[in-house]
């Protein structure tokens, strides 16, 4: 991404503060999305995202540009989210209650909202990697290559996860009597 390169150049030039001011808005959604895809809890994902940016602030002057900036940030995000998961040591629910409630409340007003609630439940029920791939891919219509970088997986593996996830979702919704095809 051009913005990422500009931020990298600022860091290399020793202007870490200016770089950080650009980095937060540029990576906010990506860091939050990645944390959310792992944690499935909006509050916890936001805490992790905050922690990631604080870590980045501290580590930015030491960034040497050997790894791509985004790859470095995604690795920090994944590690921080995994540590948070271990700390919480709780059984992760099938879906985020906050988002689920929001979707259901929309459902009270429209039939489409009810469909969304069912779809959300099915996304939550997908295997971890498939769910992660779906959330990251559809959150911002990202290229598969970037989703792969975020997940730290090969592009073809992510494509397979996405394909399987879509097939599972279509089958689940069709089984529930929704018209998918």
């Amino acid at each position, binding site marked *: 991404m051009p913005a990422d390169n500009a931020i990298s150049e600022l860091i290399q030039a020793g202007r870490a503060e200016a770089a950080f001011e650009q980095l937060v808005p540029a990576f906010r959604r990506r860091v939050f999305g990645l944390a959310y895809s792992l944690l499935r809890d909006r509050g916890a994902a936001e805490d992790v995202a905050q922690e990631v*940016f604080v870590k980045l602030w501290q580590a930015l002057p030491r960034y040497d540009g050997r790894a791509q900036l985004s790859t470095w940030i995604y690795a920090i995000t994944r590690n921080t989210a995994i540590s948070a998961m271990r700390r919480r040591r709780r059984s992760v629910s099938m879906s985020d209650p906050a988002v689920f409630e929001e979707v259901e409340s929309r459902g009270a007003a429209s039939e489409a909202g009810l469909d969304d609630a069912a779809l959300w439940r099915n996304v939550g029920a997908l295997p971890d990697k498939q769910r992660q791939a779906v959330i990251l891919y559809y959150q911002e219509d990202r290229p598969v290559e970037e989703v792969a970088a975020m997940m730290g997986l090969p592009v073809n593996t992510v494509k397979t996860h996405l394909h399987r996830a*879509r097939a599972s979702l279509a089958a689940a919704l069709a089984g529930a009597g929704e018209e998918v095809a």
Partner: protein
Amino acid sequence: MSAEDTGRRNLEARLRGLLGGMDASAGFEARVMQRVSMLAVAPREDLRVQFERRRELRRRRLRREVWMNGMTTLGLGACAAALLWRFAPEIQRLAANSASLIDPGLLAVGTLAALGAGVWLLISRARG
């Protein structure tokens, strides 16, 4: 367009609708900046406290070393005085004998060398 394609497009549109707006809550960036600005002040204060603590520890160590050195010197001096007092006749006799046996110039050089070695030892200990 096949029914399968239509179904897929429909599912994708719904997934985009469901996940597309996902973002951190309002004020997220301001909260990050606030935390970071607090961090920027905290390390300076931490460093100052650490520096003061290290300086105090060093001061105490030096004071202890000075006291120990003083006591060691005093103890050695007292021992030397006691030995001189205790063996005064023998020392006097030995000195009288050695003065007649050893060349006085050689004795002076030997004494100076022993004194120099002692001083050098004290200085190197004080530096270390």
